[in-house]
């Protein structure tokens, strides 16, 4: 006779039972870790842990389950808890909560607690079809259990008149083993409330961040940057010892007055300790850049003119973000411009001053309008066009491309010789030949040539992106040419050919 099965609590999140919600489920695991450090993630949306210790600490299994489901509800995730002897029964209990059962409902809390010793009773009422559910073989933890997963086995039991696990458990083990083999034996043990495998808990996540405190607060940035180099070495050693690297690293600096400055830097396992210290320097520089009318050029020293940083820095912390296994780095062979260190340093220095989004790299992509054919991507991020390049994009204006493309189209007034506004009907018929162009209060320009309207009606299936417009090219008497469009009855100047 084996030892009594331990008390196990299973948490089931119906909304997260898919591979795409792994990150959300990871947050759930972290929340559960606050109550019980040793948690096993059984499958996406299902986790399990030993209930005995935490239940005693938090005042009972029901109270524990109520606290955990409440904590997870704060994350916006719905969950159900089940407590029973053994992993298999606890899992079935957690799944059973969803079904309304008058005899076991415990208030509004989605928890089903099977009292100790009464697990076989609970199991006996379960239909044999539960054996066909996906994770059951994983719960049994035996090699032969793979056979259980098939729908066939449960269907066979039903055809033989064994409708509940209780019916199966009532048979003698020898008969079941001789008739159904190893799979049957496993199912029989599960049905009697035995044979669940022990929990395989994951160790709590290690804190890989490193920090340095400054006491007294360090008013100058130079010593902080110096400490940052040693800190970065410690962080890299910690990551390397575990065979890990990080995609990004977060630098947090806390001032004596409580203000905190945090910024994420691209790492990708490529930054040396000195390079990371440079990032810290730039970040501190950027933080301290005051707002004078005209700045000075030499921003290399990291302090404001009076050499202080608002009371000084108390803590500098480096936090690896998105920790991944270190798989080495392969430089691009071709098809991708390698950004030299010199350029990267310059770009990141500007990013440190103005923010991540301030330094962009243009990516040429597909699209029908000039503005949508260029996507600007912040420096350091993956360059990928928003719209496919290879597609034909009928409706593009062929020929010359405007050298000036306004980020926001300028509103304009286009009038005919009589002084009336030129309009375009829904069938793209123009009311009169455009004769004058006026924009931004500039004196009107005489239109000496024009072409259009070229209609464009795209993405009608998506109300947010749908557009209907008629485009024109206009030539004015100062020798310049303009790309204009009529949209919603208004004239817009999108760019200038000059």
């Amino acid at each position, binding site marked *: 006779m084996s030892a009594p099965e331990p008390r196990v609590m299973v948490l089931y999140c119906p909304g997260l039972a898919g591979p795409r919600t792994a990150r959300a489920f990871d947050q759930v695991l972290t929340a559960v870790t606050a109550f019980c450090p040793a948690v096993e993630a059984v499958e996406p949306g299902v986790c399990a842990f030993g209930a005995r210790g935490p239940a005693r600490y938090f005042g009972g299994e029901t109270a524990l389950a109520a606290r955990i489901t409440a904590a997870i509800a704060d994350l916006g995730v719905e969950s159900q808890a089940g407590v029973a002897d053994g992993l298999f029964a606890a899992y079935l209990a957690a799944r059973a909560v969803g079904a309304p059962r008058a005899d076991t409902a415990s208030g509004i809390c989605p928890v089903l607690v099977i009292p100790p010793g009464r697990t076989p009773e609970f199991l006996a009422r379960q239909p044999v079809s539960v054996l066909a559910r996906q994770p059951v073989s994983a719960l049994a933890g035996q090699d032969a259990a793979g056979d259980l997963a098939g729908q066939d086995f449960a269907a066979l039991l039903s055809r033989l008149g064994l409708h509940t696990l209780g019916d199966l458990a009532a048979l003698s083990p020898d008969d079941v083993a001789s008739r159904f083999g190893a799979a049957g034996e496993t199912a029989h043990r599960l049905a009697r409330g035995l044979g669940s495998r022990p929990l395989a808990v994951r160790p709590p996540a290690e804190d890989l961040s490193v920090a340095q405190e400054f006491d007294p607060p360090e008013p100058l940035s130079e010593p902080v940057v110096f400490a940052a180099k040693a800190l970065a070495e410690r962080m890299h050693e910690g990551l390397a010892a575990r065979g890990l690297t990080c995609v990004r690293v977060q630098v947090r600096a806390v001032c004596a007055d409580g203000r905190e400055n945090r910024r994420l830097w691209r790492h990708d396992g490529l930054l040396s300790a000195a390079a990371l210290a440079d990032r810290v320097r730039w970040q501190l520089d950027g933080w301290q*850049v005051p*707002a*004078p*009318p*005209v*700045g*000075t*050029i*030499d*921003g290399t020293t990291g302090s404001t003119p009076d050499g202080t940083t608002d009371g000084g820095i108390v803590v500098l912390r480096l936090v690896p973000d998105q920790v991944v296994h270190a798989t080495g780095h392969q430089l691009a062979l071709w098809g991708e*411009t390698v950004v030299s260190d*010199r*350029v*990267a*340093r*310059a*770009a990141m*220095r*500007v990013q440190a*001053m*103005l923010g991540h989004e*301030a*330094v*962009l*790299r*243009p*990516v*040429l992509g597909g699209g029908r309008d*000039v503005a949508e*054919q*260029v996507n*600007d991507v912040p*420096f350091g991020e993956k360059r990928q066009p928003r719209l496919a390049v290879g597609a034909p994009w009928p409706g593009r*204006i*062929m*020929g*010359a*491309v*405007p*050298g*000036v*493309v*306004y*980020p926001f189209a300028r509103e304009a007034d286009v009038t005919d010789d009589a002084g009336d506004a030129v309009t375009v009907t829904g069938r793209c018929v123009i009311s009169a*030949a455009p004769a004058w162009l006026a924009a931004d209060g500039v004196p009107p320009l005489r239109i000496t*040539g*024009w*072409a259009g309207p070229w209609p464009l009606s795209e993405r009608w299936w998506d109300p947010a992106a749908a557009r209907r417009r008629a485009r024109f*090219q206009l*030539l004015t008497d100062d*020798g*310049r*040419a303009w790309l204009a469009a009529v949209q919603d009855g208004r004239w817009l100047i999108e*760019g*200038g*050919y*000059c």
Partner: protein
Amino acid sequence: MAAEVSRSPVSQAADPLRDGTLPVLPALRDGTLPVLPALRELLPRGGLARGSVVTVAEFGLLILALAAGASADGAWCGIAGVPEAGMLAAAGLGLDAERTLLVPDPGHAWPQVVASLLDGCELVLLRPPAQAPAQVRQRLEATLRRGRGVLLVVGDWPGAQVRLRILTQGWTGLGDGHGRLRACCAQVTADGRGEAAVTRTRWLWLPAEDGNVSAAEPPDIPVPERHLQVVRAG
């Protein structure tokens, strides 16, 4: 380096007299960034002298074309203060979008931003958000000489070595309600200080029908009659 030499103006098989420039010593050629062939005649050394400031009166295809030659040759180009830069047109002229950094809004700290960009890029195209005080200009020029880069400025920059502007331009291809823009013929003039003191004026297709920049032959110039008269008079 060999590739650059073979692409520079005088080492090509064409005779230097046709280029309209004096033969350039190889040692000096090293001190320039290459430009598109059609623009060589406008610049005193047939290229953008390293450490110099070149201004163009207005932002447009001309300044993008000036940057395109060096960018196509492998230089990184930073564009600061020009949110409306048409990168599609620039790419058509030869500017490599892969090697371009955009800082659309450098803000009040623009001198530091430009100095940082000059550390990384050989070519920086700038439209200063405000008139630069003399002190700021001198410090940026010192940074420029140290880094051996080139600063292309939209607008005015006292002390610029070369100043370019478009005198007149005319588009072809557009009729009265029909056609489409095909090519633009522009009269570009360059003057400046020192060796650039001689005013040079050229007619260019900016862009030509194939999207490139090329020199325009007088018979092809499709500019209204009054402009042609001006050219004869000048």
